[in-house]
C-alpha cells in the first residue's frame, strides 16, 4: 500500500490541476492549473521508472551488481518537461496579448468569440 503512495500523489496533483482549471477565472491561474496537471503526469512517469534501492543510470560510475533505475521514463519526462515549457510560455504570451487588448485577465469577460 505504501508503495502506491507516489501514484496517489500524482492523481491528487492532476485532480488539483483540473480543479484549478474548472474553478478559476484568471488566465494566469488557468496556465498554472495546466502546469499542475503536467507536473502530476511527469511525476507519474518518473515514478514508473523507479526501482527499489536503484541508483542513477550512469553506466560508467556504477559498481557491478548494483541495480539502476530505468532511464527511459526519465528521458520521456524530460521531453515532456521541454514541451510543457514551450506550451506554458506560449500561453503566458497570449495572456499578455489579451491583457493588452482587453485590459482584463478574467476568462468570463474574455468572451468575444461565442455562439
Amino acid at each position, binding site marked *: 500500500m505504501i508503495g502506491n503512495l507516489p501514484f496517489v500523489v500524482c492523481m491528487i496533483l492532476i485532480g488539483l490541476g483540473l480543479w484549478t482549471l474548472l474553478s478559476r477565472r484568471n488566465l494566469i491561474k488557468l496556465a498554472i492549473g495546466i502546469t499542475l496537471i503536467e507536473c502530476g503526469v511527469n511525476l507519474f512517469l518518473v515514478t514508473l521508472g523507479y526501482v527499489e534501492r536503484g541508483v542513477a543510470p550512469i553506466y*560508467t*560510475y556504477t559498481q*557491478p551488481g548494483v541495480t539502476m533505475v530505468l532511464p527511459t521514463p526519465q528521458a520521456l519526462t524530460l521531453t515532456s518537461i521541454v514541451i510543457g*515549457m514551450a506550451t506554458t*510560455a506560449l500561453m503566458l*504570451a497570449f495572456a*499578455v*496579448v489579451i491583457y493588452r487588448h482587453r485590459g482584463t485577465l478574467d476568462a468570463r469577460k474574455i468572451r468575444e468569440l461565442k455562439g
Partner: protein
Amino acid sequence: MSVVVRTVARIILPLVLIFGAYVIMHGHLTPGGGFQGGAVAASVVALLVITFGSQRWKRIKGSLSFLEDLGAVAFVALGFLGIGYTFFRNVLAGTGGLFGAPVPFGPNPGWLNTGGTLPLMNWAVGLKVIAGLGAVVLMLGLFGGGDDW
C-alpha cells in the same frame, strides 16, 4: 534594482554561465544535457532582465532568435549526418576523430572525448535552448512594459 543586487548579479553571472556550459558539455556522461544546461544558462537572461530592466537588452533579441534557428538547423543537420546508414545514426562514435574515442569497459570517471554525435547534438540543443528560452524571457519582460522595478 538596488546596488547590492546589481553587484551580486555581476559576480554570479559568469559562474552561472560556466555551470550551464558544464552541464551541456557533460551531457553524454552525467545527468544533464542540452536542455538542462541551456535552461541553466538562459537563467542569465532572466537575471539580466530583472536586474537591469528589459529595455536595455532589446537589441539582442534579433541575434537571440538567429542563434536559436542556428541551433535547430545544426541539430537536424547532425541527424542527416547519419543518413548513409539511417537518420540519427551515430556515425562518429568509435571512429577516433572528434568525440570518437572508444568507450572503455567497466567503471571509469567518464571520458569527455566519447559519444560521437551526441555531444555535438547536446551543444546544438544547448544553443537553441539558451537562445530560445532567453528570447522568451526577454520578450515577456518587454511585453510587460515595466523597466525598472
